[in-house]
């Protein structure tokens, strides 16, 4: 079988905090194929955000290796590592903290488009803003992050990630701050990017989002991936006790609503 786009093998990470060792990831294997969407679900403290940071190369694991196209991140030359970092783009939960408050929307996007010829950057920025529905795009360019609503900032985060033409987007709870009515818009936006062949590793605690968006689901509990498989199979017929508990804990809306 050919090598997947992203492969995490035997990852372990322990933090030393307040005189105590806290193990965040015990021994985790995970892979994302090209163009595939994988949801990593679990409670806070399960180690899913740590795993995401390790996948992005933002954090070095104590044990284990991260491979992008079969090449180990830790063994890359700085130039190749920089390429890898471009190929994997993050979207974080709090869009308010993802932007430099002193840079306008146009400047933030121009920076993400640093590879593109200077004279095309403005035009490409306008394209991106239109694509994520931040309109009118021309006036948006001059705005500053504090002038945008939470939903608009999250759209801008998507635009910035897309600007790098990545092959993988690692999104850490990108929807949890968003209102329900906006959540659908965000999901549609991310689905658009999937049509371009961008793969996703989506960290979420929301089972319904995982069910709707992911091809495959991996369930994380206490630093271990306890179950993984096709989204429908894992969520309809959970094999692990913890997965079942997680699914049962979600308050049911459909009990009142006929399909």
């Amino acid at each position, binding site marked *: 079988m050919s090598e997947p786009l992203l492969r995490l093998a035997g990852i372990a990470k322990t933090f030393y905090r307040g005189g105590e060792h806290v193990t965040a990831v015990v021994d985790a294997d995970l892979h994302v194929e090209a163009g595939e969407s994988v949801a990593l679900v679990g*409670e*806070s403290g399960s180690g899913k955000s740590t795993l995401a940071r390790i996948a992005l190369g933002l954090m070095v694991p104590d044990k284990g290796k991260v491979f992008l196209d079969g090449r180990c991140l830790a063994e890359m030359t700085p130039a190749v590592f920089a390429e890898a970092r471009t190929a994997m783009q993050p979207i974080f939960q709090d869009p308010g903290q993802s932007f430099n408050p002193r840079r306008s929307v146009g400047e933030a996007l121009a920076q993400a488009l640093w590879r593109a010829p200077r004279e095309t950057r403005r035009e490409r920025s306008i394209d991106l803003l239109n694509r994520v529905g931040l309109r009118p795009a021309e006036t948006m360019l001059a705005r500053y992050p504090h002038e945008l*609503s*939470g*939903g*608009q900032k999250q759209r801008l985060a998507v635009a910035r990630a897309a600007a790098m033409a990545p092959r993988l987007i690692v999104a850490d709870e990108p929807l949890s701050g968003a*209102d*329900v*009515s*906006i*959540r*659908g*818009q965000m*999901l*549609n936006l991310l*689905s658009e990017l999937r049509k371009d062949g961008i793969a996703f590793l989506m960290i979420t*605690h929301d*089972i*319904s*989002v995982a*069910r*709707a968006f992911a091809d495959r689901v991996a369930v994380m509990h206490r630093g271990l991936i306890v179950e993984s498989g096709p989204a429908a199979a894992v969520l309809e017929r959970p094999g692990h006790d913890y997965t079942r*508990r*997680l699914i*049962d*804990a*979600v*308050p*049911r*809306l*459909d*009990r*009142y*609503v*006929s399909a």
Partner: protein
Amino acid sequence: MSLLTVDRLSLAYDGPRGRTVAIEEASLVVGEGEAVGLVGESGSGKSSLARALLGLLPRGIGRITGGTITIAGRDVTHLARRDWEKLRGRPMAMVFQDPLSSLNPVMKIGTQIGESVRRHDRGGDVAKRVEELLGLVKLPSAVAGSYPHELSGGMRQRALLAIALGCRPAMLVADEPTTALDVTTQAEILALLRELRAKLGMALLLISHDLGVVADACDRVVIMYAGRTVEWGATSDTFARPGHPYASALLAAGRVMRNEQGLFVTVEGEVGAAGGTGCPFAPRCPKVMPRCRTDMPPAFAAGGPDHAACCWLLDGQVRSGAP
């Protein structure tokens, strides 16, 4: 008799750039022992309403500009700060979203619960009552000697509930009590709330943006949009047959459904500001009519008993009447 009646309440904040309307003619009733869910997205005014109910509006900034709030038969709309002190905790207590910022970080949990017990019940064995309250929220009695930072989020929320219950409230106002918690912890807290209501006969006003949480915990539901209460009724009836287009859209979006084109169901646009003319949902409404932009629709009776929605096109029929 109803415990709490909010009648056409309007509320505004005075800031350096003038007045911002937060709530417009919102109405709401909570009967004894009843659980009512107040649902709305950010900016809908639900937290402002909760604060107004407990006299916690920022002084000199938050202003009630119309309507009334009645608690247990007493008009408290323009109550003086001093008089509010006597009402807080009993008959109405409150828990907030973030238990860590509601607890005193340098005081042991037992002391904080004791404080609330003493507030309304002078004399009596405080230590015994504290232990009783910890048992009620299913915390081990050793927690009395712990500081807030030593507890998990779920335990802190339980401690906060114990403090609220220390006042023997007839009604608990809970503002997003489970939003900061994991789904499994959330399920435990919701089960606890249900049990406490059954045991103590306490009424509950649960404020949440999560329709699932409200479906789980509440008998009746009130939906707010841009400062107005736009639909209310029994939870089962309202969620099965929503009358307001916003309520339908919210329910569809809440279940993460796809439409015929394979797109996720969504509500286009963003929540507008309160205080405009006409129906606040008109700019986003898929079924908007000319009248919606100029006249705010009154409440029309919808399907079930006590189920009503403010929409000129309720159940597909064009309604008439004075705005």
